[in-house]
């Protein structure tokens, strides 16, 4: 029965759903992941707006209207998927040492995501990011994205006292 339905040219909706939770036999590439995510988001009616940003290293941008229009970026490279969003600028932080300390303490209790520091155009940017295997099923990737959004806003709220906005 299952075999017969797997032989169909188009997978039935229930099978498609199972597929979303199954580990991948092939690693994701960014464009392939974009197509799969778009289908998944449309089917599950998730509050996410997706766009593929072209370039030599293409990325997927995800807008989350329910998280204050938070923009999350997703890119596949080699063995891992990198999901990230900027937390704040280093220049906005009052006391970098205390802030770093607070971030390091938040890190272990943040499920599925981490806080890190990156340089961008000569400026330090604190990032909240998560890493996944490029063979992760779509459902895990979506979970990572929404978890990252929640964590980011929570971290921003928790670290607000250290930040001096321009």
């Amino acid at each position: 029965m299952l075999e017969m339905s797997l032989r169909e040219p188009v997978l039935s909706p229930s099978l498609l759903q199972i597929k979303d939770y199954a580990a991948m036999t092939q690693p994701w590439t960014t464009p392939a992941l974009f197509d799969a995510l778009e289908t998944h988001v449309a089917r599950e009616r998730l509050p996410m707006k997706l766009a593929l940003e072209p370039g030599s290293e293409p990325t997927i941008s995800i807008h989350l209207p329910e998280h204050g229009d938070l923009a999350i970026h997703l890119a596949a490279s080699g063995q891992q998927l990198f999901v990230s969003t900027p937390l704040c600028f280093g220049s906005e932080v009052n006391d970098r040492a205390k802030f770093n300390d607070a971030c390091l303490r938040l890190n272990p209790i943040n499920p599925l995501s981490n806080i890190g520091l990156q340089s961008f155009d000569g400026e330090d940017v604190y990032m909240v990011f998560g890493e996944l295997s490029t063979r992760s099923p779509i459902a895990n990737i979506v979970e990572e994205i929404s978890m990252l959004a929640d964590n980011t806003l929570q971290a921003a709220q928790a670290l607000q006292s250290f930040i001096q906005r321009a």
Partner: protein
Amino acid sequence: MSILEKILTLFRGAATEAGQSIVDKNAVRILDQEIRDAQNESVRAKDELARLMAQQKIAADKLAAKDAKKAEYEGHIQRLLASGDQNLARDVATKVAQLESEVGEEQKSSTSLAAAIEKMHGAIKTADRRIAGLQQQVDQVKVNESVLRSQAAISARYSGQNAKLSTALDSLDRIKTRQVEQSARIDAAEQLAKSEGDGDLEARLSKAGLLTGGSVSADDVLARYQTVKVTQNAPAQLAAPDTSAAPAAANAAAKNA
């Protein structure tokens, strides 16, 4: 210096000295160069390995030839001794002794050659693994960079040309603004509902005791039942309009029951 140390140094430099931001921009190029160096090293090591393996092959061939020669001479010695040619047998035996020491020598060098080859194999494997690791780190640096770049491009697209990278704090602000807006909207809607549907006027009228339709108290309900019972038994009391008559009517009803 390991690659991670190098990355840390590069970025630390960029963070502390304004003039060093050029290093930051060149970081990826420096890392790429590092990979190319490691690759060249690996290629050189592979050439060296090929040379050693060729050497080992030649040595092995020579060894085999000498072994064959020795076996041949040993056969001769036996035949010469059988035929009683002692002198020639001695000469051949001298040759065999020389060959034997040569074979021993060559076997020793062949063993050390094999060990060198084994070591070289290991070194190449390590180098190749290191290159793969480096490549992954460089890819990651590039992807992180491009992720930030498109993030900045999107911020600019959403909020004007010169907008900075939009951060979580902006989102937090937006959520707060939205919450304020929403509660303001709810207040406004309530106000509107009040003024539109005569709500305000009705409220004022009912406050003045002119409207009874709005709220119903327990007393009202009780009174309603009591009047109904009274009505059944004493229709004459129906005319009693004020509620103060109700307790009396209730008493009457209780007595009747």
